């Protein structure tokens, strides 16, 4: 049997940034699958398993608001850090007064979702059932590794385990069905060959290439179906 979980998440604000508008951030209308995966992983994750998001239920009408924040416009230099480690001294500081960037954000207000995700066990010794029960116990108690968030760290998510009936959907009839355009599904990581790599996997230290994957998202009766990563709908 498949071990699917349902988790109700909600919060006062959320920002699931669109890649094309990630400088002056504009949120997607609905939570992205990768953000949903992040929420589940914040509550429970082990190297022996993987989360697959199946669908996301939108519970509240899409409402936007604006804010502006001061942020830093540069990355800390990895090369400087490396040479500082080698030589034992060096300047690693960033001066926020000099590197300040004001960025506008169009973010979501007052959001609520039900995430449906499936556990895929990666080794036979730890069956999915075990992960399922561990997740369930943790979610029911409100335990998490780190506080789950809605797209950006500052937008905290509250969560509750959903056993049977879903929380009420507040969408009007006209809001329940619509096209959401192309949405980020997730980033596919493949082992890097050669020198070029995009990220280093934190638990193994392996060098990986990252490839964003997109899918055509649509809301049907207030539910966004998420295709499997391998399906033909996914474009990369």
């Amino acid at each position, binding site marked *: 049997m498949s071990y699917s979980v349902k988790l109700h998440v909600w919060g006062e604000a959320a920002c699931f940034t*669109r*890649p*094309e*508008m*990630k*400088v*002056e951030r*504009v949120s997607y*209308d609905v939570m992205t699958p990768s953000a949903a995966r992040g929420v589940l992983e914040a509550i429970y994750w082990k190297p022996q398993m993987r989360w697959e998001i199946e669908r996301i239920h939108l519970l509240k009408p899409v*409402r*936007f608001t*604006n804010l*502006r924040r001061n*942020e*830093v*416009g*540069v*990355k800390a230099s990895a090369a400087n850090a490396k040479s500082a480690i080698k030589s034992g001294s060096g300047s690693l500081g960033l001066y926020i007064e000099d590197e300040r*960037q*004001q*960025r*506008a954000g*169009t973010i979501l207000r007052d959001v609520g979702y039900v995430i449906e995700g499936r556990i895929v066990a990666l080794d036979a010794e730890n069956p999915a059932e075990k992960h399922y029960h561990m997740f369930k116990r943790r979610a029911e108690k409100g335990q998490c590794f780190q506080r789950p968030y809605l797209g950006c760290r500052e937008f905290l998510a509250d969560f509750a385990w959903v056993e049977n009936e879903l929380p009420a959907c507040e969408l009007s009839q*006209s809001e329940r069905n619509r096209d*959401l*355009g*192309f949405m980020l599904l997730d*980033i596919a990581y493949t082992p890097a060959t050669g020198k*070029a*790599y*995009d*990220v280093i996997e934190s638990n193994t230290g392996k060098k990986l290439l*990252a490839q*964003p994957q*997109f899918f*055509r998202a649509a809301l049907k009766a207030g539910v966004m179906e998420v295709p499997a990563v391998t399906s033909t709908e996914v*474009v*990369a």
Partner: protein
Amino acid sequence: MILQVLNEFYERLSDDPSQEIAPYGYSVQKMSFCVVLAPDGRLVQFQSLISEMKNGRGIAKPLVVPGQGKPPGSGVNPCLLWDNAAYMLGYRAEDPKPERTSQCFEAFRDRHLALETEINDPQFSTVCSFLKQWRPELAVEHPELAEISQSFGCFLLQGETSYVHERTAVKQWWDQQETSDSERRGACLVSGQQRTLARLHAPKIKGVRGAQSSGASIVSFNLDAFESYGMRQSYNAPVSEQAAFQYATALNQMLADPARTVSLGDTTIVFWTAKPTAAETIFPTFFSGPLPTQNEAEDAAVLARLKAFLSRLAQGKRDKSALPSEDADTPFYILGLSPNASRVSIRFWQVSSVGEMSQRLAQYVQEVELVNSPDEIPPTPRQLIRETAREAKDAPPLLSGSLMQSILTGAPYPLAFYQAILRRIRAEQLVDKSHRKDWIRAMHRRIAAIKAVLIRNFNKEISVGLDTNRSEPAYHLGRWFALLEKVQKDALGEHINATIKDRFFTAASSTPATVFPRLISMSQNHLNKIDAKGLRITREKQIQVIADRLNEFPRHLALEQQGLFHLGYYHQVQDLYTKKSETPAISSAPESE
């Protein structure tokens, strides 16, 4: 979604023969002059393409030309068959750098001569022979050039109707050129198809108020902190070159059309619908007021159309009669843009339908409707925003965006807007009359704003005119104050220097208990001064009716009640100055009895 819908709008425009929109690889540029050549390449004349407007300003002619706008920077970048006078003729009025100008001309000439055999078109060759024989020094013989060469120019052969850059052979050659400097292909976020991806999004977005005049970008990754996963620049957001061109061109087209754009505070707003509808042109007119048009008859027609539309909205007939009913379900898009450094940020984005938008607008129109309005149409959001500050330019830019959003979404009005209006009423008691010519209008608009907030944010039911049966004491205190002022004027004449309103209105509206007893005793003196006995008795009765509704004077009025106070005052004043033959006199009892 935004880019996708803009891309669809581009397709709508390119299918519409009445719209001039540039195809991929081309752009619309403003041309102020045209070099007319004889078939052998001799110069015939420099023709002006500037057309005069009603207000005396000249408007350069927009033409579709190959290539994007001139790249900025110090490099020498000649365009094909169009450019500014420095490139085309080696001429610049009051030239600070003659060397550079001649370099430009040489680059322009060399580029065209190099292409002569490749393009192989008789008209193009004529241009080449002109470029071969032209000497920049000759420009002095044409004094008219200084007048007409501020913008770009192009070539035309004598006796021809279309410009040289519009020749089929030229277009064919141009379309074969790879315009992209990028080799990267991938899935386009807008169309989902595998295409050449744009490294930078061109053309830039022009016409957003406050943004750089050379254009700004919605999609731009100009610092490494914005980049992820080793991607450079716009590869972080894979959009095909064609989609980037189309969405930006569509947006530029809208931003360049004054009938589609509204600028409120620091936000520039564009409206459009999925298919052509009346709503997409009438909505912006409502928000910004009618545009100045070519002639007065047209002005009057636009105003009449707007008035008819709004009055139908106000009567609650909504979209069904105000707009063709088949349009009601057409998607309606509103995009608010505001500048931020070299970028354009999305201030708001809303997708709804024409019917829904008409309903929202009707709600607003009903909320701001008041008796005895000095204006023919209800106050526009811009006029209300203007009332939150001393000078129009001081109006807080953030407020206008959020007020607009409230109107468009039906959400509560921003409380900061309400507070700002109350603050202005308090601050301007004395200066109003002497400093602002339009203070009656201003007063009216402020009360309209208060009424709208009371209805929407505090769920009050408020009538257009005087309502003697309201339960809130604050409303009746406002009415009482109006009467006290009227009594003073009855006694001392209409044109006294400082009325009790000038001196006590602020205090009366916030802390009635401290002011009202004093005002009432003053009023006794005023009443005694009124010579006409009948009038005195009428006023005493009117005051008595109001006083009966109040048990005590509140010590302090909260913001919500202050609004009611202002409204009560306004309603009572309007009622006092309305001829009693038209409206029934104030009565505490319902009329039916």
